[in-house]
């Protein structure tokens, strides 16, 4: 099947999933432009890591990679292919021998790639030269766990096709960008639905990542964010990174598969550039927000 760029996949390029791990999905840059029909953006939760993995193996950044949650993926290669692992860090072995994170590795048919449990970070990105090839839905190969669009999560024994390589892999090892330890938060659009103390609390306290966080939202627990009143908000559009506050006062940050509309007020928005830190935060880890003035001179209505 020709992909949207007119290249034809080579059917002989493929791999076999020996162990999928707890949750491994196909991800690219998602389905922007369809939110008005109720379609989530989806795509890689940590886009920085996904893009880096693709560049390392010589792919354009929109090509699909595997998003490995927690680790535990084992694949058997059935063709010559360059791979690269970015994002979360853990052991990477090829045929039992430890190999480097963040480096393009040129491998061959029959090679066994084993990714252990991640030791830091939550989501690893494994890119292949040529990218993962599967049918597109609304222009994307991403698995959307909210709406069920795109391919199912990887299963044991599954064959995955790969596209033909785009260009030569990069040489050298990626230097990991210095990790930001605070996440910026731009107040609004509904900060005025909260008591004045709420933004201060959000900016001065540690909020801990809850175990039921997923690709839809990072759920946080910490000092309660109090509303002015119990008014109902009619459903309104949500952007990626929206910090929604349900009646229990515990914030949740919208990730890739977030619903397109919601009825809880959004106290602030985490800029896309800072979402990688949230996408990589493991349950139990603290998140610190820094409240910034992102919309200087903006028209902001007051109730």
């Amino acid at each position: 099947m020709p992909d949207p760029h007119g290249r034809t996949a080579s059917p002989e390029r493929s791999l076999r999933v020996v162990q999928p791990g707890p949750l491994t999905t196909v991800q690219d840059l998602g389905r922007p432009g369809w939110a008005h029909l109720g379609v989530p953006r989806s795509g890689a939760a940590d886009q920085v890591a996904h893009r880096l993995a693709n560049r390392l193996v010589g792919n354009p950044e929109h090509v699909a990679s595997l998003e490995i949650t927690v680790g535990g993926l084992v694949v058997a290669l059935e063709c010559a292919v360059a791979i690269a692992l970015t994002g979360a860090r853990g052991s990477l072995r090829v045929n039992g021998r430890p190999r480097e994170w963040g480096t393009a590795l040129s491998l061959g048919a029959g090679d066994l790639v084993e990714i252990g449990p991640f030791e830091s970070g939550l989501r690893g990105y494994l890119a292949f030269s040529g990218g993962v090839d599967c049918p597109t839905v609304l222009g994307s190969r991403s698995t959307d766990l909210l709406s069920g669009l795109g391919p199912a999560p990887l299963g044991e024994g599954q064959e995955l096709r790969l596209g033909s390589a785009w260009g030569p892999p990069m040489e050298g090892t990626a230097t990991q960008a210095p990790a930001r330890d605070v996440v910026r938060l731009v107040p609004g659009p509904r900060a005025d639905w909260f008591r004045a103390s709420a933004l201060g609390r959000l900016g001065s306290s540690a909020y801990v990542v809850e175990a039921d966080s997923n690709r839809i939202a990072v759920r946080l627990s910490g000092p309660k964010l109090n509303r002015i009143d119990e008014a109902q908000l009619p459903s309104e559009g949500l952007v990626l990174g929206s910090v929604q506050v349900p009646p229990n006062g515990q914030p949740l940050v919208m990730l890739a598969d977030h619903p397109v509309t919601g009825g809880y007020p959004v106290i602030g928005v985490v800029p896309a550039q800072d979402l990688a830190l949230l996408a990589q935060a493991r349950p139990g880890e603290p998140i610190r927000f820094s409240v910034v003035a992102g919309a200087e001179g903006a028209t902001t209505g007051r109730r």
Partner: protein
Amino acid sequence: MSVTARRVGLDAVLVECPSGAVARAVYAEVLRRVVAAVDVVPGATTILLDGLSDPQAVAADIETWVDIEAEPISRGPVVEIPTTYDGPDLASVARLWGMTTAEVVGTHRSLTFDVDFCGFAPGFAYCSGLPEHLRVPRLQRPRPRVEPGSVAVADLYTAVYPMASPGGWQILGRTSVSVWDPRGEPPGLLAPGTRVRFVDA
């Protein structure tokens, strides 16, 4: 017409409108003027413009659109949904509305609904048009599975379930029309701005 533009994050604007009718008009105007946004997402009384290169300019511009009429002259197309009224909640809605089931069917067919926004699932369109005295509560216990094509009501909205899903709306009937097909052009039959009538199957 007074609308307020609120900034959202670094590159989005939320336009607040005094009513759903004004929001529909603003949405139509945003599409007519081809505002360069990655996503334009209507809500019940808001329009979100996401992925703007100059959100401040867009916010300031929209607040000057004083000539927007609450009901745009050129309204969306009317889509007819052939419906068989044999849903499990027809009788309870009849009790709620103080009508016979035949009168519920007649009332639902007599109304022209407006798709205000989509949400909940791809292709799930919130079609407004029930008058206030016919407001319908959601089910106390949502059903674990509602069949695709189920025609249902809740609050002041009616909707057609695009795919099998859990659901808490009261089901009046069903249609064989597919309102969601990811391979279709467009993939969703009931885009915001569309008008909807339910007709004899």
